[in-house]
């Protein structure tokens, strides 16, 4: 069995002391930022990218991945205890989780979230291991036309499945694509949109843009809101273990959530947030046992399902990145950045050229999930203490880490000015209600799309029909069109809006 041999290789890599250490560091940091509202995995990974320079690539990626799925665990803690989503994907966990906490059942709620996430994480890991090789083979059949079509699908998928205004998301993608083109054009050597500024000929730093928009932009908008009164349940967390009846109720919910998360996570634009929303909607539709606590008043299924789904979704979103080299959400876009820093071109060739990296990363996810259960359930008291740290201590520290991190990318103050500029731009985006995540996806994909479009049209001698005559490319574009039609249909449009407003 190849799968066994591959996983054995992976565990061999992941079990080395240094990689275990970095997996632990990643999980700890992930839980930490997950618990703290106001800072998400995107900003954290952006801040830490420069710090991973010195690490071996496998360790760096293991740590960054740990931050992402660790934040899914931590986010649920805050959602349940404080009724604030520590992460955007735990928004739905607040609904029933906090009600459970109010009724003195914070313990079982946390356990349901933790165990559900762990189960989903394990399934997600196996799924990556099982599906990745097959998808990779498919990817080798891809020519430039197919890649262009696939990236279009990825971007369309990201706007369709994301919340908020469709057109504005398209606009943000285009803006991202254009910003990605700033700098020297690889084919002609012309420095585009660089206004004779030498630093701009290398392009605008991806890390600087991500930090400015997600770090500073968010801090400014957080500070603009009034201090939210936090109601922390610090003393009442006892009796961590769910009852027998709880287990009976949550098991099917966890299973449904896991399947849903795995399926939606693979989709471009999918991932943790969408999976959690979908899982909650489904749990509400599924009929429970008679006499069950209604939804919205502390139903354990409303915690277990979405939490399993967001963790499965978080892991499944690694699949398109590792097999096709296409990021499906912002965090994956940052992972592309991390891989390029270490001179690894993400794509199907990673599995053959760097098998220890590929399988090591996958094996580390399983180990990381095991660590997270231990970190989160027995040590829950520690994280609760953290929730009492006021924001006025946190935000100057975040500003500092952004500034230090971005300076150390090139040891140049230029990037510090760029972060500042994009901090202002990020706040403007927030004010005009333009979601910044699609911009970052576009930014990463911009140069790749141009290159593939150029090659595809060069091969076809300028004939645009190449995109619809090649079967793979045509079917990918057909899916794009289908997605757009579906989302623009009035009846579905209404449903979609409802699904994202539901609080």
């Amino acid at each position, binding site marked *: 069995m190849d799968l066994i041999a591959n996983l054995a290789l992976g565990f061999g890599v992941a079990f080395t002391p240094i990689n275990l250490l970095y997996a632990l560091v990643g999980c700890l940091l992930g839980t930490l930022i997950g618990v703290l509202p106001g800072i998400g995995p995107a900003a954290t990974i952006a801040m830490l990218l*420069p*710090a991973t320079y*010195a690490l071996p690539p496998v360790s760096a990626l293991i740590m960054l991945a740990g931050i992402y799925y660790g934040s899914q665990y931590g986010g649920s803690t805050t959602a349940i205890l404080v009724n604030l989503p520590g992460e955007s994907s735990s928004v739905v966990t607040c609904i029933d989780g906090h009600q459970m906490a109010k009724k003195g059942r914070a313990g079982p709620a946390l356990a349901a979230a933790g165990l559900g996430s762990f189960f989903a994480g394990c399934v997600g890991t196996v799924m990556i291991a099982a599906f990745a090789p097959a998808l990779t083979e498919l990817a080798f059949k891809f020519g430039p036309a197919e890649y262009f079509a696939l990236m279009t699908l990825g971007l369309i998928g990201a706007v369709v499945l994301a919340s908020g*205004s469709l*057109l*504005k998301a*398209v*606009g943000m993608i*285009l*803006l991202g*694509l*254009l910003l990605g*083109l700033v700098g020297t*054009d690889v*084919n*002609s050597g*012309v420095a*585009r*949109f660089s206004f004779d500024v030498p630093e701009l000929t290398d392009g605008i730093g991806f890390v600087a843009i991500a930090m400015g928009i997600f770090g*500073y932009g968010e*801090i*400014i*908008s957080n*500070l*603009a809101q009034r201090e939210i009164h936090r109601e922390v349940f610090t003393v009442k967390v006892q009796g961590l273990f769910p009852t027998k009846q709880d287990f009976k109720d949550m098991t099917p919910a966890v299973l449904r959530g896991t399947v849903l998360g795995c399926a939606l996570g693979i989709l471009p634009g999918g991932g943790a947030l969408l999976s959690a929303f979908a899982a909650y909607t489904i749990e509400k539709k599924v009929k429970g046992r008679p006499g069950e606590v209604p939804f919205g008043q502390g139903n354990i299924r409303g915690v277990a399902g979405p939490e399993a789904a967001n963790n499965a979704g978080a892991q499944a979103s690694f699949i398109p990145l590792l097999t096709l080299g296409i990021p499906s959400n912002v965090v994956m876009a940052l992972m592309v950045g991390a891989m390029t820093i270490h001179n690894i071109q993400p794509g199907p060739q990673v599995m053959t050229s760097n098998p220890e990296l590929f399988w090591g990363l996958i094996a580390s996810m399983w180990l990381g999930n095991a660590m997270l259960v231990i970190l989160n359930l027995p040590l829950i008291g520690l994280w609760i203490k953290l929730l009492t740290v006021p*924001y*006025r*201590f946190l*935000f*100057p*520290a975040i*500003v*500092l880490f*952004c*500034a*230090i991190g971005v*300076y*150390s990318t090139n040891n140049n*103050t230029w990037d*510090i*000015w760029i*972060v*500042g500029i994009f*901090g*202002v731009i990020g*706040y403007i985006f927030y*004010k*005009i*209600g*333009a979601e910044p995540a699609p911009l970052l996806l576009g930014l990463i994909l911009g140069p790749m*799309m*141009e290159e593939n*479009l*150029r090659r595809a*049209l*060069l091969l076809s*001698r*300028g*004939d*645009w029909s190449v995109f619809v005559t090649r079967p793979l490319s045509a079917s990918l574009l057909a899916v794009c069109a289908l997605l757009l039609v579906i989302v623009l249909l009035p009846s579905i449009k209404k449903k979609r809006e409802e699904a994202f407003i539901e609080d």
Partner: protein
Amino acid sequence: MNIKSQKDFSAGLMFMGVGAAFAWGATTYNVGSGDRMGPGYFPLMLGILMALVGAVITFKALVIETIDGDKIGKWAWRPLFYIISANVVFGILLAGLRSIHLPAFGLIVAIYALTFIASMAQAGWKFRTTLILATALAVGSYLVFVLALALQFPVWPEFITG
């Protein structure tokens, strides 16, 4: 004509403006044709598309009724000013500014400055707690970034280290 959604109206204008600017900029490079794309081809395409998307958004913002007018609301000048200033001052102090002959003050001084300026973004900041926070951050950053990760920073002011 009334603006029905302030947010969308401004977003639409922004997309139109930026898209047009990029498209116009792209025409100054060689555009080329489909089979031999010049550096201006792709940005020109994207810029035009973006301006069109912006136009549709603006149009819809003028036509489609919203419940509360989708107001942009007040700008949070205070946090905006202090956070960005903290960042800029940090950069200037860390590495100095050659154009005005300002020497580098190094990491430690820059951290104190950043922490104080950033803290002022919130009303009711206190000198003592901020001082403690700044000291903690300075010591922590020195241990983690300078000693453990061995990142290259000017740590102390230039006129002390020489």
